[in-house]
């Protein structure tokens, strides 16, 4: 039995500021779902989470957990648990006391607390450390204690604020899968904040992308990747990032250097300007030998050969992109040398077209 969470036009304006940190956020987190809030720093993702936690005032709008309106409830009355970026473990309490603290405050019996702490410790491999102070633990162990503290509460909602950002790269990858697996097993609705789009893509059932306090798109990871709603989402999701550039439109084709790249008719029909924002992912590029009308020339600056795949970084001739360099995925082990000049064309159905005025995606099919 898990609970949905609803943000209903929830807005947060910090005192002394005129622009909202979170602007009228409408978002439904489904029961039992793992939802990731992602965006660049300052986009309002942490503020949204803290509004849900009750650590941040809601200026207007409402937040509901299940049927309950929690907008003005105190944190402790919301039946939620949170994992902090810094873990926020009480330094003067042992691991076991840290995990059982909320239960103790809630007035549970000692036996009950011990039972629940031991259970959680078993799940998280923390049993040998229950009597230690947080100081004596490694970063990964502390992270698990923070998780354990949330689990023992058996709350309706888990909140996680960049819980992996203090771990080293390797540990982050393994912990990532552990958290996702644990959440699926417990089936508790979870809201997870991160700035790392790889974490977002790998962990979330659905991902919500925020920018400047405004929700850009909520969708399953692959849908975000394949059908970004606007140029920002397109550029933010995916690594290496999508190539984006603004190009002139002539006779239903975008002018990229000497190449004429035909645009889908549905897109040109929706287009009101004489320019277009074109997006194409590194793997949507095909290397062509010699001349083709829709192929543009690229001078290779750097080649990254990773063994199983390879990426070329180069400059576009006669045109420019938002990022200074174009990225293309090429077949490994036969990469063109640095300084060479190669031609690419965009695979026709892998092209993203956006309005230059609004950044919104234009229909391509």
């Amino acid at each position, binding site marked *: 039995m898990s609970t949905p969470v609803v943000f209903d036009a929830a807005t947060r304006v910090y005192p002394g500021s005129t622009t909202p940190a979170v602007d009228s956020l409408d978002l439904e987190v489904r029961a039992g779902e793992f939802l990731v809030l992602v965006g660049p720093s300052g986009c309002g993702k942490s503020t949204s989470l803290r509004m849900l936690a*009750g*650590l*941040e*005032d809601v200026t207007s709008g409402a937040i509901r957990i299940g049927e309950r*309106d929690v*907008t*003005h409830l*105190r*944190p402790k009355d919301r039946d939620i648990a949170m994992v902090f970026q810094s873990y926020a473990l009480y330094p003067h309490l042992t691991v076991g006391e840290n995990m059982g603290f909320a239960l103790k405050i809630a007035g549970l019996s000692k036996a009950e607390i011990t039972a629940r702490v031991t259970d959680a410790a078993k799940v998280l491999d923390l049993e040998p450390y229950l009597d230690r102070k947080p100081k004596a633990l490694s970063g990964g162990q502390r992270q698990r204690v923070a998780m354990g503290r949330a689990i023992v509460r058996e709350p309706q909602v888990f909140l996680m604020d960049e819980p992996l950002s203090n771990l080293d790269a390797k540990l982050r990858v393994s912990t990532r899968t552990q958290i996702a697996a644990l959440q699926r097993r417990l089936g508790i609705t979870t809201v997870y904040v991160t700035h790392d789009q790889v974490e977002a893509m790998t962990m979330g059932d659905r991902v919500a992308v925020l920018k400047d306090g405004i929700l850009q798109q909520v969708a399953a990871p692959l849908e975000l990747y394949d059908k970004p709603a606007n140029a920002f989402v397109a550029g933010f999701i995916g690594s290496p990032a999508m190539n984006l550039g603004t190009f002139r439109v002539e006779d239903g084709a975008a002018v990229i250097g000497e190449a004429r790249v035909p645009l889908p008719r549905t897109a040109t029909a929706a287009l009101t300007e004489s320019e277009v924002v074109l997006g194409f992912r590194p793997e949507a590029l095909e290397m062509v030998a010699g001349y083709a009308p829709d192929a543009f020339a690229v001078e290779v600056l750097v080649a990254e050969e990773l063994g199983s795949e390879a990426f070329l970084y180069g400059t576009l001739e006669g045109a420019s992109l938002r990022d200074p360099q174009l990225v293309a995925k090429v077949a490994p082990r036969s990469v063109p040398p640095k300084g060479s000049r190669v031609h690419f064309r965009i695979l026709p159905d892998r092209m993203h077209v956006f309005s230059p005025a609004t950044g919104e995606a234009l229909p391509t099919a």
Partner: protein
Amino acid sequence: MTTVISAGPGHEPGPARRGRVRRLLDRHWYAWAMVLPTVLVLGVLVLYPLFQGIYQSFTDLNETNNRDLICTQTLGGGEDCVPNPDRAQFVGLDNYVDLLTGERGHFWLLLVNTVVWTGACVFFHYTIGLGLAVLLNRTFRGRSLYRVLLIVPWAVPAFVSAFAWKFLFNPRFGLINSLLSNVGIDPVDWFNHRWTSMFAAIVTNVWLGVPFMMVAILGGLQSIPADLYEAAEMDGATPWQRFRHVTLPGLRPVSSTVILLGTIWTFNMFPIIFFVTGGEPAGETEILVTGAFRAAFEGLRNYSLAATYGVLILSMLVVYAAMYRRVLRSKGEVW
């Protein structure tokens, strides 16, 4: 942590003003509750007397005219009160004029003494404290023992150290004079000359005040990241240059605070002058605070004159603190 509105959904906003007060209370009541005891005590025992003192400095209040009523015991055991015909009167700026022109008291002498006293004490507190802190900030054996022993003067009550030093400076049987005569210098009659007397007081206060500075600066030193020193060393800085360009700037937040506090404290440091020199010779080593105290408590107790001293001291320190802040700010310090 930001405060959280605890008003429930059923909370109806009343008339605008009452609703506002109510909201403020809901939101801030525990912060206010936490500062309330302090505010009450300070309000009653510091702010109220302070304003009273400012008022009194414009009157001629003294021991003889401080009653509003004169009461006589009647035969029935009750009291009969009539307004005091001689009660204190408003005299405008008379007290200030008298003090500043030297009509009464020796304001300018006391001011010079206070400035010399404060300047010398703070200078030696800071430089000696800094020197010892830098030494103690290294790692070597016995460091924590040195640290404990060097802080000892802090734990000695001020008047005890005053007596201890007065004892050492005693012209007849003091250790300092007997040491001097051992190396062939004539004994000094310390408390018979203005500046030797002041010197004795300054030595005492420096001895007393260095530990606080040392501990505060030591804390500041420990908060300077070690990699700054390593970076400076990689850049080829000599130890002196590292001190000059890493240590001193890194200490600035601590230094600016302790120097300001130290100046204020020393300016108003009462017991040392009072007990070590007692103003000897003939009041030539009084500072403003002891002068004010004597006005208030010795001879005819002149409360209004003491209050006038107090207001002058307060205004000088406020001006000093404001200028100090402005200078710091112009140098880009956030304070």
